[in-house]
């Protein structure tokens, strides 16, 4: 029986990085405050002490430079693991990510394929206002050549991060910071990976398929419990991988339930829910019993004082589930 430990998501991510650094001597961690300090959220705590300042180091405060440098390191044979302190600050690096990193394998005909993984805390519910709360997954999912992965708990965080680090593609690894400490679990301390591109069936149900990722999965779990109290049986799916995504699992579920609701924090218009709804209706059209529903943040900048109204709550999700089931 492998050893396990009670870890929160921060500890699980740190544990994954530790394992990977140990295995791959070309792995390098870079970002703002990730060195001796161990990152503002402490994910990289202890890594510099263990692996040295050449492999774990602070950079100047410039996101475009961090990602640009990491691409060059990847071209030069290293395996850079970047931390962007908040996903809201990733946009100075957008050109490097979208025009350089994402296209490098394709544009070089496979001659070069820099393996850069970018970890970044994202999402709201921490009183962070416009600039410490956003969910940028759809921007990156819209860029061919990137993987976008979002864990929802410590077990997934560790397994998916190691899976992503083993993979040869550039990955945007979005970490739901609201549940960084609150999501705890007994997880294996040994090395393990979870497959990318596979959605996780969290709970079986018959009446409706509910799809979410990251911190919203936990809000959905509350909603599922409330729905159960009202006699509705919800099937809950954690998408985990936004790009590419596991359409097969969604279609199989909706073929059974005939209904689907997608929940995300990002604004509704052109959010990733739009993609899921479009793809599922095309594949499961004959089985649908109600319009597919999106329950999301609003088409506003992420608010500060009123963020509880902006973010989908368990009550809002419950209302959407019931209305769709009773359609």
């Amino acid at each position, binding site marked *: 029986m492998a050893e396990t430990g009670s870890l929160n998501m921060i500890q699980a991510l740190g544990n994954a990085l530790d394992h990977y650094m140990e295995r791959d001597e070309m792995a390098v961690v870079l970002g703002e405050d990730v060195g001796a300090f161990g990152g503002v959220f402490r994910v990289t705590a202890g890594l510099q002490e263990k692996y040295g300042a050449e492999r774990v180091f602070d950079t100047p405060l410039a996101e475009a*430079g961090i990602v640009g440098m990491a691409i060059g390191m990847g071209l030069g044979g290293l395996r850079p693991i970047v931390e962007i302190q908040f996903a809201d600050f990733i946009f100075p690096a957008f*050109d490097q990510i979208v025009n350089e990193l994402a296209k490098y394998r394709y544009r070089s005909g496979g001659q070069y394929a820099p393996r850069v993984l970018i970890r970044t805390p994202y999402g709201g519910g921490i009183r962070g206002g416009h600039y410490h709360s956003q969910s940028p997954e759809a921007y990156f999912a819209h860029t061919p050549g990137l993987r976008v992965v979002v864990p929802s708990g410590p077990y997934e965080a560790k397994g998916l991060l190691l899976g992503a680090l083993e993979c040869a593609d550039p990955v945007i690894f979005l970490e739901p910071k609201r549940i960084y400490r609150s999501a705890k679990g007994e997880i294996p301390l040994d090395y393990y990976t979870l497959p990318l591109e596979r959605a996780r069936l969290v709970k079986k149900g018959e009446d409706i398929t509910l799809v979410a990722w990251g911190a919203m999965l936990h809000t959905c779990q509350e909603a599922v419990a409330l729905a159960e109290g009202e006699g509705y049986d919800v099937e809950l799916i954690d998408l985990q991988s936004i790009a590419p995504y596991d359409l097969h699992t969604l279609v199989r579920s909706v073929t059974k339930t005939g209904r689907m609701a997608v929940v995300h924090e990002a604004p509704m218009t052109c959010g990733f829910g739009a993609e899921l709804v479009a793809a599922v209706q095309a594949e499961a059209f004959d089985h649908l019993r109600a319009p597919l529903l999106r329950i999301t943040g609003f088409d506003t900048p992420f608010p500060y004082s009123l963020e509880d109204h902006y973010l989908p709550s368990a009550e809002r999700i419950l209302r959407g589930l019931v209305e769709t089931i009773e359609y």
Partner: protein
Amino acid sequence: MAGQPLFSILNEDGSCEEAYRGLLTDDEVRQALDAMILNRILDRRLLMLQRQGRLAFWMTSRGEEATILGAAASLLPEDPIFLSYRELGCLLWRRIPLPLIFNQLIGNNRDLCLGRQMPVHYCYKEWAIPSVSSPVGTQLPHACGFGYAAKMRGTGQVALAFCGEGTASEGDFHTALNFAGVFATPTIFVIRNNGYAISTPESSQTAAESLAVRAEGYGMPGFQVDGNDLLAVVKVLGEAVDRARSGGGPTLVEAMTYRMGPHSTADDPSAYRSDDEAAEWNRLDPYERLKAHGIWRGIWSNEEEATIQASWDERVVATLAECERHPPPRIESLFEGVLETVSPQLEAQRDAYLAAHRRRQRDEFEVP
């Protein structure tokens, strides 16, 4: 250093101080003259090809060959060169076979990049040439990161990156030099200051007396050099390369030169540059200066020039014709290499498109 008279080595009659003669061997001078001749033949012929509609796009480098070749000549073959886009000469110096260059320009099925980028967006890993992209300056932090990797892995490589003086206004220029300074990476940044970013003169890019002075702000040495003087470029860059290779960190070099032709085939420089200005720079033509130097060394002559010119002319025409015969890449390749494996989403798109495409082809074939 910036502010001083521009550092040159070649005198007007082609001579130079004896101490500088050894910067390049006779063979290297001949190789540079040969590459410049080929470079100009390609500039002329490919511009023509573009005008005839046989090539989508071409960017000339006439006038800037000394800067470009001087940089390549200062490096070892395994040192990566992060091109901006106007540095054909580096490919020629490294003797990348002409068909590989033409296949890229044409985008045929023999292109190493599978016809995925417009002309001049080269990538030749075997010759340590990473991929060119259109957004300017993005390659500069890559050169810094590559330098970091080389240093950490102990490969001894030095990374060199080119950009134009217009690109020095981009944020990536600043971050790259700042990072390279902080991490003391073996990276060399070469600004080809050819006076114009398309039509915008240098005076609209900076209020400073030079771009080289910025080096001080990044904690690295900075030099201006006569970019039309091959020996001067080799001298300054050679020292920068030695410094980088021996752990002395990065250098910024601003090579003062002039784009004698248009920015690209979509440009008409007569709309923004005076004839007088162009004439003044014609006097400083880097090929003519190196040719005079070759004659001064006694290793070059008009006859030799004519022979080499004719031989390249013939080879270029024949090779182009050969490369133009190859068809475009397989349609299937459009869908490959986005990620390491084809995603399920793309797989579905591919299958649907290819099925329809094959049906269409079959129907066309069956029409009497």
